[in-house]
């Protein structure tokens, strides 16, 4: 296990190295290079040269890379010239709000997806199962932003149940203090994830239902409720925990689309605005942060899987 951990972390570091090189290289692909993209089409050659020197873009790539990674390791993600704020401060301001949105959405989707997936597995091939499978398929085929649009159309424009905009606040607490405005963004997030959990839970529970330990539990006279919640539920959760660790890219994508639709003041919206403004420092900083989170998530998923399922032995 320890050997596996060391090898796995070593792999993660190699991956991280490749990702950072690729990301920094992407910056040089901006039309005309990063500085002309930043200064706009009317910048003079002298201005471009000045800023190229200021930001170190006139140095060889490997020196730029070392300097950049060194800065990131010190928590310096660069400075957004367009927003006149350091990227680290931007992250500190927006990340908690995105965590609120993503966290609530994930919790709500798990609260619906897991029980419904279990229901489907127990009552498989019945009308209820087919209906929920249909809903899950719709969830897969429907783009996140369309779900969000529909929710706004139905519950904000047509019926005025909820406001069409997300809470506008500079802090996560401020966002939480307006629960009515949070309902639609969280619901949109939850619907998209719900399909994922319920499908996995359904197949996972169905796999477990035919295991020997379930037969043993039944033979010993355990009631259906006890078999289901005491035995199968726990064993089926392992796949969900793994999936949670692997689903970070999905969460990031969901956050961007939902924040754009609802104008939710989080990292996703900031990233989107940075893309429109070609604010490359923000793009770079957010991408590296999201990537590190993804790699750590994958690592935790693998480790969590090994801890939760004693049958898994890594060599």
């Amino acid at each position, binding site marked *: 296990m320890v050997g596996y951990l060391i090898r796995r972390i070593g792999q993660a570091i190699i991956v991280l190295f490749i990702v950072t090189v690729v990301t920094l290289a992407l910056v040089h692909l901006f039309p005309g290079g990063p500085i002309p993209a930043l200064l706009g089409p009317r910048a003079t050659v002298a201005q471009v040269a000045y800023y190229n020197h200021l930001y170190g873009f006139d140095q060889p790539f490997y020196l730029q890379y070392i300097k950049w990674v060194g800065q990131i390791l010190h928590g310096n993600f660069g400075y957004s010239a367009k927003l006149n704020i350091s990227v680290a401060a931007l992250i500190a301001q927006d990340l908690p709000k995105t965590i609120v949105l993503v966290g609530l959405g994930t919790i709500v989707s798990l609260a619906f997806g897991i029980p419904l997936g279990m229901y489907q597995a127990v009552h498989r091939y019945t009308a209820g199962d087919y209906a929920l499978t249909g809903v899950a398929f719709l969830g*897969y085929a429907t783009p996140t932003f369309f779900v969000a*649009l*529909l929710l706004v159309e139905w519950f904000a424009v047509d019926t005025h149940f909820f406001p069409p905009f997300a809470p506008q606040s500079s802090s996560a607490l401020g966002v939480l203090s307006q629960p009515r405005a949070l309902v639609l963004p969280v619901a949109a997030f939850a619907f998209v994830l719900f399909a994922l959990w319920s499908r996995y839970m359904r197949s996972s529970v169905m796999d477990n239902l035919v295991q020997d330990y379930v037969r043993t539990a039944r033979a010993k006279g355990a009631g259906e409720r006890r078999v289901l919640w005491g035995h199968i539920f726990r064993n089926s959760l392992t796949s969900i925990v793994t999936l949670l660790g692997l689903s970070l*890219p999905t969460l990031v994508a969901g956050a961007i689309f939902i924040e754009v639709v609802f104008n939710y003041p989080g990292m996703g919206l900031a990233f989107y605005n940075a893309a429109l403004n070609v604010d490359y420092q923000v793009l770079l900083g957010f991408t590296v942060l999201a990537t590190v989170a993804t790699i750590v998530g994958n690592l935790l998923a693998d480790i969590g899987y090994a801890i939760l399922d004693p049958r898994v032995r890594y060599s």
Partner: protein
Amino acid sequence: MTMMIPPSEETPGAGLAEQELIVPELAEQDSALTAAEAQERGLAPSVKSRSMLRRGWEVFRENKLALASLGLALFMIGFCFLGPLFYHTDQVHTNLENVLCPPSASHPLGCDNVGYDVLGRLMIAGQTSIEVGVAAAVVAVLFGTLYGALAGFVGGPLDSLMMRLVDAGLSIPYITVLIILSVIFHPNKITMIFVIAAFYWLAVARLIRGETLTLRTREYVQAVKVIGGRKSRAITRHIVPNAIGTIIVQGTFAVADAIIILAGLGFLGLGVQPPDTDWGTMLSGGLTYLQSSQSYWWLIYPAGICIILICIAFNFIGDALRDAFETRLQRR
């Protein structure tokens, strides 16, 4: 070590299939084995020899849902590419008299914010969505297959290096790469194809590499090596044809995924630019007018429903194809 493709909402098939993913590989192995055995003994199959594709089609044909999905997909393609021949609309000049006009006899689905007829726009938007979706899927699957087959077949340090590159690519949340790439390259149909393929081939490569690992130990692949065949021959003539089931299934899901990805970028305003449009770009117009007091439902539902229908169709076709390639053994 567990090999998992990171699930994403843009890969509906992958999510559903995680548990079943192993199965096609097993089926593939068995068929490969029997084929190899038959070759070894110089026996022709007792039944009249039918191609794998032919047998697959026979199973596919019996699946009602799959046939309905195929019909739906063909209908959507016909609607987009043949529709404009029968339903003439001006999709080039804006018409300010018609701005946001509600559905009427002359405009069955109303008009959008610059006066384009929505029904006609749906057709040309669909052309872009389907063209880019199919082309991106083809590029991604072709490149991913060759890359994955090469890595899996060669093995050793080169395989490790190639797969770490794939791991790295898959670790960057795809949406951020796609957004950055669309900012860098002036978005049009051609660049969108390559932008989407540039991300999508990674998952394909990982899948095909896994498939190759099981195929390369087969006798007939070993035989190529023994009789002095080149690696390129083993890959292109033996590995890839035997993984064709997985490749086709993956390609089908890829079309649906690429259409959703393109729609997502279009919705963000980073997809194809006017006068070109796709279904996602049409929806982004709907967002602008959503928050006004009046409901402009014809800006939202038609394009959104088109995306859902084509994606459901391709996903069901992909599922059915997987069944077809899996069960072909029993059908002989």
